[in-house]
């Protein structure tokens, strides 16, 4: 394990950070979150053409740049810090990781180049009424039909679902032995029998939709394999954890900065130990969470490059990171509001934008309680 980034990675971070600062000031975030699509197509295009971020960790044979997961984690941290509004997480993380982990070579060659270029926006439709992103909880059944499989049922909490061109849908097939196995299926947004409806999210920067499938014909990605389905979600958890760390850092900096501006009782509130100690505690929590996210990113980096028989350590670190950062993010958000006082509860103050992202992210892809349990299981306990 490495405990630092290389000089090249630090330089890459600087480039991404500058782009995010310039393109995603809170004025822009506030503007975009009020739109239906939630993103600016021009900036999306710039992000892909100038920085090639959509292509970043897609292998070169599929039209990508072939960087590793650590570089992806760096991008997400900077996006999370600036609440960058774009379907990046849906397309380049959720859908891409599902495809990379399960699809055949031919399927990858067919789908990934357009995702890499940003021309096609893909997302994942997995979660059902039971609000779970685990293979064993998928109950949508894929019935074999001519030309593929037929999907019926509902999927909800589909990020960027209203504007995605392509859906990677989780469903199960009967494996013949009376048990079902989860698989991912590819569905285009114009498929017959597919209806989508907007869902009102607590976090306006994360657009959600409910999809209804009525005998939608879909192509299966690779073979049914619940282990690989869970593995691709684990990868996405690590990506999300790194995005969340960026948000934690914003909230911490914002609280410390405000505490040194706000005067009460003739002195800055940051000169009171009550506030200083809250800030010190926040820093500790954020740094511990950061260590978890970085450590997990490295584990996925290696797991993605070398097919390993035993993924349990990677799965453990993924759950550890998601649990650690979920707790840190919401607590940092709560503390940041507390330090701001009344103004922190107003719409005009920016803190609630990150608070809502923290709350939404806390349970997205599984909450901290679930992931603590999954951690114990991955450790063989």
């Amino acid at each position, binding site marked *: *394990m*490495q*405990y*630092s980034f290389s000089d090249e990675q630090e330089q890459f971070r600087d480039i991404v950070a500058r782009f995010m600062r310039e393109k995603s000031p809170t004025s822009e975030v506030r503007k975009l979150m009020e739109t239906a699509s939630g993103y600016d197509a021009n900036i999306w295009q710039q992000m892909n053409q100038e920085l090639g971020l959509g292509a970043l960790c897609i292998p070169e044979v599929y039209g990508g740049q072939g960087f590793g997961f650590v570089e992806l984690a760096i991008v997400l941290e900077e996006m999370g810090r600036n609440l960058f509004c774009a379907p990046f997480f849906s397309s380049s993380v959720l859908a891409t990781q599902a495809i990379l982990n399960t699809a055949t070579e031919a399927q990858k060659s067919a789908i990934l180049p357009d995702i890499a270029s940003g021309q096609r926006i893909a997302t994942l439709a997995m979660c059902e009424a039971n609000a779970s992103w685990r293979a064993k909880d998928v109950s949508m059944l894929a019935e074999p039909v001519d030309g593929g499989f037929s999907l019926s049922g509902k999927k909800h909490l589909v990020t960027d679902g209203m504007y995605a061109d392509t859906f990677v849908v989780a469903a199960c097939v009967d494996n013949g032995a009376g048990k079902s196995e989860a698989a991912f299926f590819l569905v285009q947004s114009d498929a017959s029998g597919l209806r989508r409806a907007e869902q009102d999210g607590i976090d306006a920067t994360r657009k959600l939709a409910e999809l209804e499938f009525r005998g939608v014909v879909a192509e299966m990605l690779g073979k049914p394999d619940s282990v690989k389905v869970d593995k691709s979600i684990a990868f996405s958890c690590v990506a999300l954890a790194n995005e969340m760390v960026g948000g934690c850092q914003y909230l911490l900096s914002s609280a*410390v900065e405000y*505490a*040194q501006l706000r005067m009460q009782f003739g002195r*800055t509130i*940051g*000169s009171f*130990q009550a*506030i*200083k*100690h809250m*800030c*010190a*505690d926040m*820093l*500790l929590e954020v*740094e*511990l*969470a*950061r*260590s*978890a996210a*970085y*450590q997990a990113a490295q584990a996925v980096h290696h797991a993605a490059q070398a097919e390993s028989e035993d993924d349990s350590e990677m799965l453990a670190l993924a759950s*550890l990171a998601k*649990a*650690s950062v979920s707790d840190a993010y919401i607590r940092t958000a709560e503390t940041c509001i507390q330090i701001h006082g009344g103004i922190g509860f107003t719409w005009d103050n920016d803190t609630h934008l990150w608070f809502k992202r923290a709350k939404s992210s806390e349970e997205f892809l599984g909450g901290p*309680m679930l992931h*603590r*349990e999954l*951690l*114990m299981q991955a450790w063989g*306990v």
Partner: protein
Amino acid sequence: MENNVIDSKIRAVQADVRVWLKENWHVNHSLLEWRNLLVESGWGVPCWPKAWYGRGLPADMETAVNGEFAAAGALGVARAGIRMLAAATLLEHGTEAHKQKFLRRILTGEDNWCQLFSEPGSGSDLAGATTRADLKDGRWLINGQKLWTTSAHHAEWGLLLARTDWDLPKHQGLSYFVLDMRQPGVEVQPLRQMNGHASFNQVFFDNAVIEPEYLVGALGDGWKVAMTTLAHERRSADGFRNWGKVSNGEGAIFEEERAENAIFNEPYKWYPQRAGRVDLIMQRARDSGLISDLRVRQEIAALLILSETAKWTAQRARAAQQLGRPQGPEGSLGKLAGSHIARAASRVHTLLGGAEVMLKGKDSEMQGLIAEILLSVPATSIAGGTDEIQRNIIAERVLGMPKEPRFDTGPFRDVPRGLKK
């Protein structure tokens, strides 16, 4: 290219040590004879100056030399207690006479040392010391009380911080002395802790005498000199008690070293327990059957997440340091993280023990070890700087927040202290 040069230098040093050890190391030496040989050869403290028992090698050679000692199974100089802090302080601030008198016997183990800094009235506020040193008839008379002094009852010499001027602001009125512990004016009493151990002492001074040549640094430079001692204490905090690792070699010389270590390890035997003994949690959970309890699993996972992420955070700090990058916030957080871990571990041990935690002693869980954990953890967030002081340091030095307002900048005589009347 550069690495090759360094490598070849290391190899040359290793070859020298190896040859010297081959010719000189023998288990038939007495411990003192052997240490005298070490001191004369410079191999006992190779990174000390040549003039003072060392070989003037760069600090990064120490590991290489130690490796050769370990390979040969040879013992090193005395390291137990705070002797190396005393040595570092004297090397930096001591006179030639101090170095002459003290350094050699520190390394041979003939003299033992203790640190006389903390007082009942100055804990977090260490510079508020009120033990006084008054010059009378050409000698310093010491009166007052020190606290938390480890191994005072084994020590020949003490590093003393005492007030020599009450009219200056508090940091400027302190001076630093070497005190002879074996004199009538010094009384050492064990201090019993809430966990029943008495690892520390209180030291009372009643007209204890210090000859004027035992002042270290200039008069009024006590705080500056004490900072040197404390900096070495912090730097060596990780490997501080490496000397506690007892070799299992056979022969009289090893017996001697084990006896020496046993005395100095005694006060620290509960230290692992005060950190919470996270290492015991999983096995205890399995043994108790509570490992399948969902609530217990949650608590254990939360604790292990805390302890793992704290480890990685420390490793990130070390990696940044090795790369010569600016020290991030990671470094200052370890102590505070340790307090959280210890408290969380104590809670989980309680959860696993249930009502059994009402017991202590031989018949209780793990022959009293669990009770010792529960009764020792409260020390973690106090010893070596309280959590509150750590938070101040983190807020001020890492986050750049305002310093605490001060009410102690005038003449020390007028500073409110002790208990409020």
